[in-house]
């Protein structure tokens, strides 16, 4: 059995705003989901560390980092209608980004295990120069940039119910990162159509697989299965997962209808993209129903660890069963159009 390499303890309790769904109890629920695995000595906890400035500026504008830090130290406040920061949020966000770095470094050193990073605040909406969607720093992007700087090729699988616009934007023109997202559409943040395929240097390195409201697990699984040939031809050396659990049917912020059993299936699929052991890490993104978050954490990690679990049954029969293949068709058509317009230009 593989070991679980976990970083979940960096004092994120102080990042809290009364009544906001992105709350400290989420991390507690995710940790409880890990505890439910009863891993004993097979649980390896790596210590917290802060991401260094040179690690953050790979994906964030230096001026943004300065302003965010100053804003937090000045007491914080609301950054947009969704996103808050407290006086402690800067140091917590830097620890969250560092937690991802610590986990991938530990996996690389061990050459074995599955990583799980209980990141709060979450990260996949954070742009290079802007906080949004509850996110301050883009934790998974910081880790991916760290890996590609070391010569790796990274596929980011984002199954959060919201499109990870920040991650997509940061790696829009980066050929060493393949970004694959299943998400509800339409929904915040409004991006994530199949026609968004990457920048001129990275055409085809962004793959969006939007699902309609009410879609069940079969639609999400089918979409990710449809993406598999593209991932395989990319030949990733690492798999990082933006593991939001807000596509669960109990989640209050969205309308997909997945269960913990569906997340187990998605995790298995994502794990199958890895070239070998010690090359998969899950980063917590959304998920605002605490029981669903706990159960989905357990189910996803169980699937990756090859452990038995008592998940809710996988779901099927909702709308959007063909959404993934249809998105893939649009993805290829867009690439053809871009290629022919490029030929016309030359």
């Amino acid at each position, binding site marked *: 059995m593989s070991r679980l390499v976990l970083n979940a303890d960096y004092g994120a309790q102080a990042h809290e705003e009364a009544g*906001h*769904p992105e709350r400290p109890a989420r991390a507690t629920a995710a940790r409880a989901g890990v505890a439910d695995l009863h891993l004993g000595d097979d649980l390896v906890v790596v210590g917290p560390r802060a991401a260094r400035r040179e690690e953050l500026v790979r994906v964030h504008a230096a*001026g*943004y980092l300065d*302003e*965010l830090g*100053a*804003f937090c130290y000045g007491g914080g*406040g*609301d*950054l*947009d*209608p*969704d996103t808050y920061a407290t006086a402690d949020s800067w140091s917590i966000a830097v620890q969250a980004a560092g937690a991802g770095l610590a986990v991938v470094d530990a996996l690389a050193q061990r050459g074995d295990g599955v990583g799980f990073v209980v990141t709060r605040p979450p990260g996949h909406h954070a742009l290079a*120069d*802007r*906080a*949004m*969607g*509850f996110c301050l720093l883009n934790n998974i992007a910081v880790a991916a940039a760290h890996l590609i700087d070391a010569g790796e090729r990274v596929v980011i699988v984002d199954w959060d119910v*919201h499109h990870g*616009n920040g991650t997509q934007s940061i790696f829009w023109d980066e050929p060493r990162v393949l970004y694959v997202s299943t998400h509800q559409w*339409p*929904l*915040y*943040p*409004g*991006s994530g159509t199949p026609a968004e395929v990457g920048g001129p240097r990275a055409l085809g390195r962004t793959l969006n697989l939007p699902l309609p409201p009410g879609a069940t697990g079969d639609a999400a699984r089918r979409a990710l299965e449809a993406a598999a040939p593209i991932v395989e031809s990319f030949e990733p050396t690492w798999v990082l997962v933006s593991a939001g659990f807000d596509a669960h049917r109990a989640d209050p*912020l969205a*309308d997909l209808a997945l269960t913990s059993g569906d997340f187990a299936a998605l995790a298995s699929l994502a794990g199958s993209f890895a070239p070998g052991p010690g090359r998969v890490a899950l980063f917590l993104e959304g998920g605002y129903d605490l029981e669903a978050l706990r159960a989905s954490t357990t189910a996803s990690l169980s699937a990756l660890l090859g452990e038995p679990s008592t998940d809710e049954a996988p779901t099927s029969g909702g709308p959007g069963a063909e959404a993934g293949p249809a998105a893939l068709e649009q993805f290829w058509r867009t690439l053809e159009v871009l290629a022919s317009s490029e030929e016309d230009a030359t």
Partner: protein
Amino acid sequence: MTRSIAVGFDGSPSATRALRVALALARDAGATTWVLHARGMLEERATESSTPAVVSETVTELGLDPERVHWRVEDGDPCSVLLRSVAPPVEAEILVVGRRGHGHPEGLLLGSTSLQLVEHAHVPVVVVPSPLDE
């Protein structure tokens, strides 16, 4: 000739001031106005699809043709929604946004839709100050 003007609107006093400026600009230019509401993560997904009363009243007050003023709810943060409005169907050629007197230090992009918009937009941006800025 300007054909399409987009204004961000969240119902706040600063947004209402921006709305008045956008509508006046559109009237003078003979342009269509798109009043855009950015629906955030925390907002009810059933946000009203009909035009808010304050928008209709301002349209009437300024003597505009209601057929040339469109209300539209878009998922996203206010800055991104306005930036995306340069694409179809809105195809905005001017973006109008209110600026709140929130007391942030000068030059701080954080939390300021207007400053972020000016930083990133590829079309002219009109920033309508709040009384605290005047």
